[in-house]
């Protein structure tokens, strides 16, 4: 089986090895004398300029799973899968407005994680712990999804075995390499590799969207083929346009995903690594170039329909793995060597975000659990060390998710991940603007939003499963007389906010202590060169000089 794909496998392996080598070399790239500091390992020294940030955040937000799953969704459901386009449009203005403030306050106070900010802003280690745990739990399945992206490619190349271990061996090896260079180089590794990843992806996609329509008879024919397929299918909610039932779902999913995405710890890590506000703001107008790419990639799903691609069988009998349609499309329509390049683009596309995510999760553990609860007086070097080791543990956990659980389970977990990370919105995103909410109100709101979100997800059935079948919640379950659906996350976060507000009013009336705000209004505008920030020299000096709260 795999012998038919020998050229593809060789091209894939060579490119994979090339970027692995770059990952190790990255430790010396733009590196200071001392890597034993969390700012250096986990945030690349907070020094990245415009271009690096562009590739890093781009490589961070548009993952291998996106490249595989969005077209798969278009292939299966049609227009509903295109939500990824409005989703990635609305996110940038949001970041422009909100995350620059987080950058400033973090720069000023040396925050590494969103939970660091919450800890200081609301004077509540408990709330910070909740934010940190939410971040770690939401990130783990996201990393596992990257593996599913690689797996789709490997499966198409016929690199698959008879038992679970043999089938997953290539992924385990790939992740072992990834773990080793992330350990050594920290955030510099994905930053450097992102250049290669995105260059490959841009080349592959540009060739694909020019060549494939030409070969398949033009865009008109491609849309006609998709239309014909959905007309013939029994599902009432598919089609090349939205219908009355899924429009609300479409827009709430786009908005909710955008809000969730920039609350994910790894997106915040990418933003905090830039060297000043200007870099972030400029990037927010340049990053949508990726959205255009994503829109075109999504349409590969329709091209696969027009080309008559039949997805490979899934893990359970009778099911199909729609994730394989993009790799199969390349396999059928392009020469082997070019398909190999495309596969490498997807495979490497998994490594960049996986590395950033594991770093972000490790930073959360180190700053908000280890330093807060286990070792108060940890030195910067100890912090960096704990983070490095935690990043290894996180990756082992993600691999275990794939090897020992049904990969479908990881997809479900990620669905849940989006809903739960949204519950940090009141504390993190609104906290950047106002301290009106009481810390205890935020905690109670978090519990309410999380509980409701889980309950709603549990109620959602799909043709193949009774619970956790998707994120489209039928409004009829709330007693409305309609067949419309809505994205679970938006409802859960609205309830979270409402509960937080009510509890805040009650606590304020009862005059419950609300702690001391560790930040000042001016902190939210601080920029590179702010006199109150003492970069470099101070950080390298003895840790005793660091003020301890």
């Amino acid at each position, binding site marked *: 089986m795999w012998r038919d794909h020998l050229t593809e496998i060789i091209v894939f392996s060579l490119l994979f090895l090339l970027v692995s080598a770059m990952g190790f070399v990255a430790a010396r790239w733009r590196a200071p004398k001392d890597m034993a500091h969390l700012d250096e390992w986990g945030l690349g020294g907070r020094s990245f300029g415009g271009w690096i940030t562009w590739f890093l955040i781009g490589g961070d937000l548009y993952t291998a799973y996106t490249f595989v799953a969005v077209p798969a969704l278009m292939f299966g459901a049609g227009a509903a899968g295109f939500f990824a386009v409005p989703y990635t449009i609305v996110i940038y203005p949001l970041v*422009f407005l909100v995350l620059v403030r987080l950058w400033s306050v973090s720069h000023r106070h040396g925050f590494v994680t969103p939970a660091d900010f919450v800890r200081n802003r609301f004077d509540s280690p408990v709330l910070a712990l909740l934010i940190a745990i939410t971040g770690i739990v939401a990130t783990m399945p996201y990393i596992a999804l990257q593996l599913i992206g690689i797996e789709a490619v490997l499966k198409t190349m016929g690199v698959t075995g008879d038992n679970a271990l043999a089938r997953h061996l290539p992924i385990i090896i790939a992740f072992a390499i990834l773990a080793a260079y992330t350990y050594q180089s920290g955030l510099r590794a994905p930053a450097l590799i992102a250049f290669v990843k995105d260059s490959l992806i841009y080349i592959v996609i540009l060739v694909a969207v020019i060549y494939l329509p030409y070969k398949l008879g033009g865009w008109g024919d491609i849309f006609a083929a998709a239309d014909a397929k959905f007309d013939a299918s029994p599902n009432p909610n598919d089609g090349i346009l939205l219908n009355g039932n899924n*429009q609300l779902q479409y827009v709430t999913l786009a908005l909710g995903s955008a809000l969730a995405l920039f609350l994910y710890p790894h997106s915040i890590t990418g933003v905090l690594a830039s060297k000043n506000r200007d870099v972030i703001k400029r990037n927010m107008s340049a990053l949508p170039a990726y959205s255009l790419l994503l*829109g075109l990639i999504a349409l590969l799903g329709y091209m696969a329909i027009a080309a008559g691609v039949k997805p490979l069988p899934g893990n359970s009998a009778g099911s199909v793995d729609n994730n394989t349609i993009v790799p199969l499309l390349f396999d059928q329509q392009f020469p082997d060597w070019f398909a190999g390049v495309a596969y490498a683009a997807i495979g490497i596309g998994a490594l960049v975000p996986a590395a950033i995510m594991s770093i972000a999760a490790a930073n959360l553990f180190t700053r908000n659990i280890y330093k807060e609860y286990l070792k108060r007086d940890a030195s910067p070097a100890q912090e960096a060390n704990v983070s490095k080791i935690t990043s290894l543990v996180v990756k082992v956990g993600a691999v275990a998710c794939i090897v020992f659980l049904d990969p479908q389970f990881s997809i479900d977990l990620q669905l849940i991940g989006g809903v739960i990370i949204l519950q940090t919105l009141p504390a993190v995103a609104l906290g950047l603007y106002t301290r009106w909410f009481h810390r205890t109100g935020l905690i109670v709101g978090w519990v309410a939003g999380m509980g409701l979100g889980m309950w709603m997800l549990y109620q959602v059935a799909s043709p193949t499963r009774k619970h956790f079948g998707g994120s489209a919640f039928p409004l009829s379950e709330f007693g409305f007389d309609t067949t419309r659906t809505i994205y679970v996350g938006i409802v859960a976060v609205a309830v979270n906010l409402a509960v937080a507000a009510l509890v805040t009013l009650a606590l304020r009336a009862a005059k419950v202590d609300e702690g001391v705000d560790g930040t000042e209004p001016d902190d939210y505008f601080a920029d590179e060169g702010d006199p109150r920030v003492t970069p470099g020299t101070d950080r390298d000096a003895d840790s005793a000089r660091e003020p301890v709260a």
Partner: protein
Amino acid sequence: MAAPEPEAPTTAPTRAKDHSPWNWLLFIPIVVPLIPVFFNGDSPRVFGFPRFYWLQLAFILLGVGTTTLVYQMTKKRGDS
């Protein structure tokens, strides 16, 4: 964890203020792509793309245009 430092904050010239009315423009690319009546239709087609597809791709340009404009109008004067 860094605590608020005792000395009074000094106003630095490097500090930018966010309060610009231009920022309100950013709500256009946040709101417009979330209104399905604009894009949920087939005609007119452009290069074979139904309106649903080409218009949403065009919203990307709307986003780029707006953020670029706001960035240009709000960036620090003088030292950059």
